[in-house]
């Protein structure tokens, strides 16, 4: 049963140095507040897992919190490059970053396998591309037709952190809008934290509502605005201007560090 605690307590309880951590949210509901708190708490050597690293992982990589990145698309959507991600891979700054990359379909099915507690999932994909030689997939033959398909290994992160619109006092969570792979990430992980825009007396069923019951979640923390500059549909709006500004802020190492110190590391909750 999910415990309702503060963001600081929740992050301290679920993330340790060296953990594999999935902060998910596909463009929508990206858990920035939790990621920032994790940086303020000084977590290091993390294996960061996310389909779309986005600005949040650019920040986490840039301050040197990550040992490894598992991902499928490392861009600033609609804007261009993630400069800290590129700098880490191209120049090893601020330190070496191990990379394990997949396609979106592969990552999604890895989460499905993880949520199903199966060791792998079967799909069509990867074959004939150079990704096969650079990642952890295997060929598998259909036992009925003989067709060769691709097996992707399950993702079962130590920790999953996602953001949602609301939770009730029993820690039942509801999110709506683009649902991404959040349910799968929570079900696949050993430990989980859901940050929410608001705590409500009762979850009212909504169109497109995805409910995650409190008894499969470890912690719920109230973090209004906690997915900004991403957004929580119906409550906050995506700050597209900031996504564009980030292209400038993150281009230069020093400017990035100054910004992070001013806006994240020295910020509230530090």
């Amino acid at each position, binding site marked *: 049963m999910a415990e309702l605690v503060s963001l600081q307590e929740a992050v301290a309880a679920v993330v340790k140095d060296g953990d594999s951590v999935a902060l998910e949210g596909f463009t*929508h509901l990206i858990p920035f507040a939790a990621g920032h708190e994790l940086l303020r708490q000084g977590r290091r050597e993390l294996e960061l897992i996310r389909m*779309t690293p986005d600005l949040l992982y650019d920040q986490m990589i840039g301050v040197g919190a990550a040992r490894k990145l598992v991902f499928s*698309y*490392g861009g600033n959507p*609609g804007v261009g490059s993630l400069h800290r991600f590129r700098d880490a891979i191209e120049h090893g700054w601020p330190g070496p970053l191990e990379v394990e990359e997949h396609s979106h379909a592969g990552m999604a099915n890895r989460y499905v396998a993880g949520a199903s507690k199966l060791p792998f999932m079967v799909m069509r*994909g990867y074959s004939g591309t150079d*990704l096969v030689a650079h990642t952890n997939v295997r060929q598998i033959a259909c036992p009925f037709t003989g067709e060769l398909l691709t097996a992707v290994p399950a993702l079962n992160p130590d920790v999953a952190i996602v953001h949602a619109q609301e939770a009730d006092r029993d820690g039942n969570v509801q999110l709506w809008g*683009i649902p991404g792979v959040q349910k799968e990430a929570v079900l696949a992980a050993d430990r989980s934290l859901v940050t929410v825009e608001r705590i409500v007396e009762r979850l009212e069923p909504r169109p497109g509502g995805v409910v995650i019951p409190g008894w499969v979640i470890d912690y719920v923390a109230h973090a209004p605005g906690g997915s900004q500059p991403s957004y929580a549909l119906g409550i906050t709006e*995506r700050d597209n201007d900031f996504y564009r500004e980030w292209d400038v802020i993150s281009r230069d190492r020093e400017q990035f560090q100054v910004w992070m110190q001013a806006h994240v590391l020295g910020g509230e909750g530090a």
Partner: protein
Amino acid sequence: MSAVAPDSGYTTGELQTIVAARSLAGKRSCFIGVGRPSTAALLARIVHNPKLVLVYESGTIGAKPHRVPLSIGDGELAQTADLVVSVPEMFNYWIGPGQVQVAFLGAAQVDRHANLNSTVIGDYDHPRTRLPGAGGAPEIATGCAEVVVIAPHGRRTFVERLDFMTTRGERTTLVITDLGVLEPRDGELTLTTLHPGVTVEQVQEATGWDLRVADQIAVSPQPSERELAALRELVNR
């Protein structure tokens, strides 16, 4: 790319978008990413094909955005979609089995077989430029029946040999550039259409391999007033 074409009232980028939009006339559904493909697909809904179903990999099926979205997950996409599905469902039930007819894809490098690189420039382990990576492209390109590649025409993009093979090109039906249109003929991209004012030599010069040219070359119709006005109104929303 946004240079004004000689003797015209439009940019080459506008023409490229308009040609891409035309390719969606009569199509049922199209998978699109952000940027020019998204603009082209929205334009197609305005000018050629109001029933065209737009599918974004964020999970929004039948999205009807008023403005060109910045990201594939903008709120307006979810709010206007016929249905919104999880990412696993998107790839397993919609993309993989070919429920979506056409896909618009971009890439940093394209080879003569329409294979695409969006992973790295240079060596994989020590890249000169680390690109975003595969995203949904590999499975989109093998799931959808028809793939339309939209890319700027130049030797950095149209290369003899990809630095990394991210996405297979065997389902590509059109490559729409700012100079013309290439189509596969016996598995090799062949110049079939020139944009107005562009010469075969210009296209060959901008291609990193010895480009095949069709016996009969068409010329893209000039953008109509309606197309241009609709495009400009759309991007200014």
